[in-house]
């Protein structure tokens, strides 16, 4: 027994977790075994230790039996270590005079043999009892939090989170890599299920962002470096040149008209190549900021240096056009980060059977969104690439979704947007519209009703995945058409449906660079590449990295109502953090035994968090407790063994190992 602690009085609590543990582990036997170990004053088993009565049990025993060490054998510390530390503290004991044993995830859930699972539980509990005897009281350090917030991605989710925080008086940096905020929603004409005009509901929020005194908006910008930790992040942002000075530009757009390119000749990214723009352009009429951008790839002056620079002339004494603008680095400090980087759509070329890129009249849904948009390349008229107006249209659901050959997941919004497009296309063209779906996923407020509306409008609903789109005609009516072949599974006939226009309802996929963003911010991704939430039900906007939250479609495919809901929730979580004013740091940090450190500097370059510095006057290394994350690298590396780590002292670990092996 450890002399430091004087008399040892240990309490042991074995949890049933309902039947989660009790069904596989004989909890009574474990408790009885522990009761007989030296130092143990009381040993109990209880149905739910994490419940209020369970926690009360611990508190009461500490007070009445004067316990000074506690062991709880239950689930993963990830779930309830904090709960039990709280209960220990309520009894008046230092919360670190406690050790938790995981006999659920590490035992009952992974074993079937009851006897051997019980033996394992006993060994783990014995180890914890021997370990806890050596635990020292520790204090958590409090570190103040920086009140500003960084939001990455200016889609509807990022915009909503930014406005929420800014309205609550927090300063927000909104970093967007495109020339305008608005994200995918800015490209739509109408939104399901209410069919309200996307621009009418989105652009007021976009302008509010620009005008808000609490929001610093950086477009054409990307985060390039993230340092620090919850409450105290240090962020480097690279701002690409726009070649227009944002402070001087008044948004008159005269420079665009003045460009030497009289005709727009460059494929327009915002219109997905369906329209053309000039080298100096604005993404769409309501873009925010209302400032043009120059594309150095196509601007004549960048290529030859010999342009007449009519744009500069047109700008006159406002002097906003600046062809010499250079990238700018900004460094900011923030307390919390919200990632709202959204999604990209599936590349339809990966399903060659549907002929995208081969047949000009095969479109992707995002392209059709632009085609029917009043500010799109055709002014909202549905005109095919060959100039015709379609009289029959086929919409294919689940392209790049629900398919082991591409992506397994259901993209969740495409059934609904396919219905929306069916309605809008029928309204604009009067065409016969066929929706080929596998299952109609219309779960949402007023979504099923929207589906019913489409049924009433006479859109053909064919339940079957299309096998191919071909221009090979079998009957005279099929000549000159695109023929879609599918089984109409509800009547068990294979059907061939000739149409003028095919719409591919492409799925939502993670951004190509999502993995890089994940690494930059040190958060996790699911195997598919979506940002991983801390808990799918109970912590949907938290990540495993404290202080970093996620919102919108970067977490999984979702529609606008859900993206906005998550954005509000992420903003609230960030606010809770900031308004608390401080973070408590885990005390499991490393410390240097000053008398023993030889000043060899081995540890300094090894620390992944740059927490170790060299004290030149004393010629020894020093660990900054606030920066140390307790990874233990330096502890293991120090050649003279002069680095120790709280809660992971050598003696504690050895005693634990001895405990496991005691009966082996």
């Amino acid at each position, binding site marked *: 027994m450890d002399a430091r602690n004087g008399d040892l009085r240990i309490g042991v609590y074995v949890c049933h977790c309902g039947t989660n543990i009790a069904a596989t582990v004989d909890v009574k036997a474990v408790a009885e075994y522990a009761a007989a170990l030296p130092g143990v004053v009381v040993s109990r088993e209880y149905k739910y230790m994490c419940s209020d009565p369970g926690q009360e049990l611990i508190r009461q025993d500490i007070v009445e039996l004067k316990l000074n060490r506690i062991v709880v054998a239950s689930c993963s510390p990830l779930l309830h270590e904090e709960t039990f530390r709280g209960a220990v503290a309520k009894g008046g004991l230092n919360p670190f005079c406690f050790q938790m044993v995981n006999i659920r995830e590490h035992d009952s859930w992974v074993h079937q043999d009851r006897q051997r699972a019980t033996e394992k539980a006993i060994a783990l509990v014995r180890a914890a009892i021997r370990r806890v005897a050596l635990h020292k009281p520790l204090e958590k350090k409090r570190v103040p939090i920086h009140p500003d917030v960084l939001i990455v991605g200016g889609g509807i989710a990022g915009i909503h989170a930014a406005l929420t925080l800014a309205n609550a008086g927090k300063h927000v940096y909104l970093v967007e890599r495109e020339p305008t905020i608005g994200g995918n929603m800015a490209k739509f004409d109408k939104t399901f299920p209410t069919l309200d005009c996307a621009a009418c509901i989105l652009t007021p929020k976009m302008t509010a962002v620009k005008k808000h005194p609490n929001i610093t908006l950086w477009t054409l910008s990307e985060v390039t470096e993230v340092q620090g930790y919850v409450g105290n992040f240090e962020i480097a942002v690279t701002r690409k040149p726009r070649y227009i000075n944002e402070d001087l530009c008044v948004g008159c757009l005269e420079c665009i008209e003045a460009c030497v390119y009289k005709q727009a000749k460059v494929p327009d990214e915002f219109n997905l190549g369906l329209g053309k723009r000039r080298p100096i352009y604005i993404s769409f009429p309501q873009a925010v900021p209302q400032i043009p951008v120059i594309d150095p790839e196509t601007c004549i002056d960048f290529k030859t240096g010999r342009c007449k620079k009519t744009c500069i002339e047109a700008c006159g004494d406002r002097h906003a056009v600046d062809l010499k603008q250079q990238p700018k680095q900004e460094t900011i400090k923030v307390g919390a980060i919200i990632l709202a980087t959204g999604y990209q759509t599936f590349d339809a070329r990966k399903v060659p059977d549907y002929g995208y890129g081969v047949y000009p009249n095969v479109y992707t849904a995002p392209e059709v969104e632009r085609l029917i948009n009043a500010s799109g390349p055709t002014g909202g008229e549905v005109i095919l690439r060959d100039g015709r107006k379609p009289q029959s249209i086929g919409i294919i659901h689940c392209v790049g979704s629900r398919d082991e050959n591409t992506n397994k997941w259901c993209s969740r919004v495409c059934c609904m947007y396919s219905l929306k497009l069916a309605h809008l296309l029928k309204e604009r063209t009067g065409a016969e519209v066929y929706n080929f779906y596998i299952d109609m996923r219309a779960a949402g407020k007023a979504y099923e009703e929207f589906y019913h509306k489409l049924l009433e409008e006479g859109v053909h609903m064919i339940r079957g995945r299309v096998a191919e789109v071909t221009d090979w005609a079998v009957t005279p009516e099929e000549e000159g058409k695109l023929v879609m072949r599918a*089984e109409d599974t509800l009547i068990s006939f294979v059907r061939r449906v000739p149409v003028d226009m095919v719409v591919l309802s492409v799925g939502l996929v993670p951004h190509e660079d999502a993995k890089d963003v994940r690494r930059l911010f040190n958060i996790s991704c699911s195997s598919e590449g979506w940002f991983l939430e801390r808990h799918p039900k109970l912590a949907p906007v938290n990540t495993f990295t404290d202080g970093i939250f996620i919102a919108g479609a970067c977490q999984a495919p979702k529609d606008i109502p859900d993206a906005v809901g998550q954005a509000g929730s992420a903003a609230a979580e960030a606010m809770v953090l900031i308004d608390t004013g401080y973070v408590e740091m885990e005390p499991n940090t490393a410390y240097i035994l000053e008398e023993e450190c030889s000043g060899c500097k081995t540890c300094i370059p090894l620390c992944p968090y740059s927490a170790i510095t060299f004290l030149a006057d004393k010629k020894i290394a020093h660990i900054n407790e606030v920066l140390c994350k307790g990874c233990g690298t330096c502890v293991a590396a120090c050649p003279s063994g002069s680095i120790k780590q709280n809660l992971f002292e050598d003696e504690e670990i050895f005693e634990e190992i001895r405990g496991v092996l005691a009966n082996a």
Partner: protein
Amino acid sequence: MAVKRMIKYEVERDPQFAGWVAGVIGGERVRNCIQCGLCSASCPLSPYMDYTPRRLIHMAREGFKRDVLGSFTIWLCTSCYSCTVECPRRIRVTDVMYALKRRAIEDGVYPKRFPIPVLASEFGAMIRRKGRVTESWLILRVFLKTAIIRLLGMSKLGSKLFFSGRMGLVPESIRDRKQLQTLLDAVETHKEVAA
């Protein structure tokens, strides 16, 4: 026109057969089928099938043994593998078709005067006996067992093929038939073990 009862009672389901389907080589994933119909739509023969491949997969995994083994569908499948290549749930539809064909022959429940299963079993039997197929005799046997009348209609084509030397009447055979027997026996016993 006769009115047919279409309702299915639970007693008509054979859960053992359903389990067998999910256990045959290629059938492991039938329970993953989402009934999307892509197999049927990509199948060149589905327009002639009594049940589309999608429907057959579901009938099989539900255990409607009689309807499945008695269907024309399995005999119309040409093993082109389109369905298997396209299936979004990676179900090996073609291999399931093969397993069902074998089972139908074993159980003797295939459609009786339908030439394809007869051709399949006659072909197999001839190989077993001679190690080689003599087309003239094979065709003769198949027509005798299915549609004798149609044989007369084919006589003109038959004689043309005969006189141009495309089709002989002398039964062909391999030299060492015993070796082949041993080989086939080994395969058969292995199959028993696997089943």
